[in-house]
């Protein structure tokens, strides 16, 4: 059975993530134990609330090192919502600039939209070849956030490297709603709260862990 650790650093509704992953057949542990997080087939980094608080929480349990080490070894990591945002270089909230984990270049900023938070079910524009978002054409996913990455700044020049697959969503303006980049995967939406469509996405990810 594929083992998944949901990183527990004091953020949000971890039980939902756990149950949704179990529903698609993963053996899930919610913990901040370093060995467990290092050794699981997949690591999920959840996150709700403020960027700065999530970064502080992740660092407090050594999550930054865990994520770094896993990725150096090509071991899969999935960031969800603010758990995706912290993977970027910088978060700007309420004028404060907070350093992220820097796995990808880019800045998490407040969206320009009439109504914020962006709350509810929205569509996604999936790039060709996406494995994570296979079989969910036309489906909507549940979002709840006010901040997002509004441009994709990573330059992939090395022809030996596969270019990251970037999925976009529109709310007031375009923003990055998912990224697939080798072992590192992330969604701005909440697959664990996106009903059956979300289950397909989680199943796609879990089945890629073998």
């Amino acid at each position: 059975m594929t083992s998944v650790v949901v990183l527990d650093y004091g953020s949000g509704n971890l039980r939902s993530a756990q149950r949704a992953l179990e529903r698609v057949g993963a053996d899930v542990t919610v913990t901040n134990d370093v060995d467990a997080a290092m050794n699981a087939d997949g690591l999920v980094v959840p996150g709700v609330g403020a960027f700065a608080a999530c970064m502080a929480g992740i660092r407090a349990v050594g999550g930054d090192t865990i994520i770094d080490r896993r990725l150096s070894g090509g071991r899969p990591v999935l960031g969800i919502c603010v758990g995706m945002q912290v993977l970027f270089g910088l978060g700007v909230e309420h004028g404060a600039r907070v350093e992220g984990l820097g796995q990808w270049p880019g800045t998490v900023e407040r969206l320009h939209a009439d109504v914020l938070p962006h709350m509810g079910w929205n569509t996604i524009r999936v790039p060709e070849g996406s494995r994570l978002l296979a079989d969910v054409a036309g489906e909507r996913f549940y979002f709840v956030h006010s901040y997002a990455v509004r441009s994709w700044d990573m330059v992939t020049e090395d022809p030996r490297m596969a270019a990251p697959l970037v999925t976009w969503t529109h709310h007031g303006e375009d923003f990055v709603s998912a990224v697939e980049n080798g072992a590192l995967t992330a969604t701005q939406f909440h697959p664990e709260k996106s009903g059956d469509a979300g289950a397909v996405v989680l199943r796609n990810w879990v089945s890629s862990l073998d």
Partner: protein
Amino acid sequence: MSVAIRVIPCLDVDAGRVVKGINFVDLRDAGDPVELATAYGLAGADELVFLDITASSSDRATTYDVVRRTAETVFIPLTVGGGVREVADFDRLLRAGADKVSVNTAAIHDPTLLSDAAERFGSQCVVLSVDARRCPEGVSTPSGFEVTTHGGRRSTGIDAIDWAVEGARRGAGEILLNSMDADGTESGYDLPLIELVRREVTVPLIASGGAGRIGDFAPAVGAGADAVLAASVFHFGTLSIAEVKGELAEAGYPVR
């Protein structure tokens, strides 16, 4: 494409049981909130609201169990309200599996509850529930609408629009706007109230109170609601979630 208009059934839960008539599907136990929540999830509800109307605090523990069991089986967002008094209540409900917590009376008594909860858990899970009505004789507010407590029975004299604005400023990520005038009438949502609040707040707005016929929903969205909430029309099977979504789509609004 844009974010879909949410259609949200609201369940009144008393000591772990759904109260008010429920007869829209063949359930083994029509009073079990978890079973009903599951049925609504399958029927295409975009979100669920549990309103805990339990009077005694000793029975409130049952609510946590209901929330826990619902979060185990229903994979759409769940808002829980009723009896929320302090930040610790947010914590307990979120830990039990709620995605959002709505607060009403306690925030009126102490508005810092909104900012404290938003700071600790994020605005996205703080819902300010506003029970508004047209000012009765002897009460006057700038907008003509006041906030009530105790299910519309007690006047506060606070301007409903100002309160929604202040709530959002203090960190509420969403306003659940209940019209006490329209509630129970099944004669349509309170469109002037929705318009007034929409003009002043930029957080998502859930319209509540007054839904009775299929034609009631699109006008609420036209007035500025991002989501429409209803209870009895869904519970009694007068309308299905799919019918409401069909009507909204017909009116040109995006639905899931």
